[in-house]
């Protein structure tokens, strides 16, 4: 069984939370010390860029490249915002990290602020993660006491304040510009881009936005070096480890840290305990609700950014959701689309009106009332909605529809031909 020396989960014991003493015992804050003592902000940015780290929140954009667009050396107010809105169904990794080891994120936030010339950071947490917020606040108290947070950190002259913001629900807040509106106390509809947050973000100031898991990787890149970090992945182009979620029809759903690029089948067999009730694998979402399905022919595919793009889907958040052979994929897709339609913020027409239409079509088909025309219309909605919505929510929402029509067209047609769901006895 393939495993790896965990980085982010190295202190994780289920049901326990490690605070400052335990975190330091396994090398915690050595990355921050090294950065402040031996490295310039520019060399920290260089190291992160060289590591090949890609955003772990879903979009997978290069963290180093994102940081290179940021006006790090400009004077004036700038912000770091950590996106902890984790509301993509099938995604629960950031919660696991904050339940186990909150200092991990805090150290990443501090190093990122140092690298980007930022003095104020906000950690945006979703409403459901109250224990995570409490853990972080306790960690921040400890860090302040130890001279790791606030003014003149470790005597370096670098000062940084961190605030925890508790949200009140809604998936759209994970969209970076909606999140900024939410933080500012405005109605969290997305903003138009450009200007991008790196130019004009929170309170109109340059703002860097990164996911919790992304930032928690930064201390390891600094202590171990970019080359070592990159070598941890199983794929040639991949880099580092990944917190994979395993949920759905599995014997042992869990969250596990493994090298980036784990083959899907191996992950399911060795860590998910295989498909439950001795049934067989039919399909999965590879990385949360907005990623197109993989099927049984993809069990050898490596779960990495590039390899999944090659088979028409995305790594997303790395939250794998498995469906067994008794699952109706029309019904599964309908469940996913109902989520997206409900969570649409209502700002733009393709999303607000298009997603309920897609739900209506899927409902008709699932109930056996669908026609060939409905299937054509479903296909058309892919073209009408994708690329025409104000933000990426609707594009993500159509991911499962795209997967359904590419991999399970026959199953959809069977519903229409038989006038009922073929998987319901």
């Amino acid at each position, binding site marked *: 069984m393939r495993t790896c020396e965990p980085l982010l989960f190295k202190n994780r014991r289920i049901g326990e939370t490690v605070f400052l003493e335990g975190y330091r015992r396994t090398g915690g804050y050595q990355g921050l010390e090294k950065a402040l003592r031996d490295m310039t902000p520019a060399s920290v940015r260089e190291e992160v860029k060289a590591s090949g780290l890609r955003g772990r929140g879903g979009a997978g954009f290069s963290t180093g490249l994102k940081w290179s667009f940021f006006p790090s050396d400009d004077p004036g107010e700038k912000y770091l915002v950590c996106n902890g809105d984790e509301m993509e169904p099938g995604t629960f990794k950031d919660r696991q990290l904050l339940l186990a080891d909150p200092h991990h994120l805090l150290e990443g936030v501090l190093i990122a602020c140092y690298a980007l010339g930022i003095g104020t950071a906000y950690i945006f947490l979703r409403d459901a993660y109250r224990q995570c917020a409490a853990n972080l606040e306790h960690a921040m108290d400890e860090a302040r006491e130890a001279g790791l947070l606030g003014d003149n950190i470790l005597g370096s002259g670098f000062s940084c304040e961190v605030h925890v913001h508790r949200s009140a629900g809604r998936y759209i807040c994970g969209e970076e510009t909606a999140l900024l509106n939410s933080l500012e106390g405005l109605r969290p509809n997305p903003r138009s881009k450009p200007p991008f947050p790196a130019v004009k973000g929170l309170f109109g100031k340059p703002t860097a936005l990164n996911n919790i898991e992304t930032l928690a990787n930064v201390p390891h890149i600094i202590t171990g070096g970019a080359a070592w970090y990159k070598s941890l992945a199983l794929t040639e182009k991949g880099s580092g480890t990944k917190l994979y979620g395993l949920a759905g029809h599995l014997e042992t*759903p869990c969250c596990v840290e493994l090298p980036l690029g784990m083959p899907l089948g191996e992950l399911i067999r060795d860590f998910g305990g295989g498909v439950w009730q001795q049934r067989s694998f039919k399909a999965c979402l590879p990385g949360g609700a907005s990623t197109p399905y993989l099927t049984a022919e993809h069990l050898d595919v490596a779960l990495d950014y590039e390899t999944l793009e090659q088979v028409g889907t995305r790594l997303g958040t790395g939250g794998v959701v498995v469906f067994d052979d008794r699952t109706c994929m029309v019904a599964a897709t309908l469940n*996913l689309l109902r989520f997206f339609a409900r969570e649409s913020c209502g700002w733009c027409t393709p999303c607000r009106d298009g997603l309920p239409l897609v739900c209506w079509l899927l409902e008709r088909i699932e109930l056996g009332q669908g026609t060939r025309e409905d299937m054509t219309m479903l296909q058309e909605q892919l073209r009408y909605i994708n690329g025409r919505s104000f933000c990426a929510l609707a594009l993500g929402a159509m991911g499962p529809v795209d997967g359904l029509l590419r991999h399970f067209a026959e199953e959809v047609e069977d519903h229409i031909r038989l006038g009922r769901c073929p998987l319901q006895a």
Partner: protein
Amino acid sequence: MLLSEKQITQLKRRVRETPHPREMILDVLHAIQDANGWVSDEGVELAAIILGLSPLQVEEVATFYDKIYRRPVGRKVIHICDSICCWSRGSEALMQRLQQLLGIAAGETTIDGMFTLLPTCCLGACADAPALRIGKTLYGKVAIEQLEAILDGERTEVSS
């Protein structure tokens, strides 16, 4: 009294001290909701006064979030996850059974004012699906047979 004089003074002081007062809108709404169970029209008006905003500016934020209750709710809100992982492990049957046990439909409150039943999206407890939250307590790997005992436990906790 939606908030005590002391709470109002404290919140007003924080508003004065922060460079971006509007940023505190959810903190103020959370405080009002924690004290009253929900945010009434008067609650929106009070928040506006504390924050130095118009009631409309508060309202457009308050109505956006599903965890800010703009209508009265029971003493405990049951949020049952209906997203994909919980769906795949039986959340629809759980929802039906809850409606039966409580004698209400989704969105309604029991006659005794104890529970409000609301569907919610993913609670981030996908490895423990099916999951639901009652008040501040998260329940994972919930079997249909356990529901009655869970509800009884939550009722007793309130009365004790």
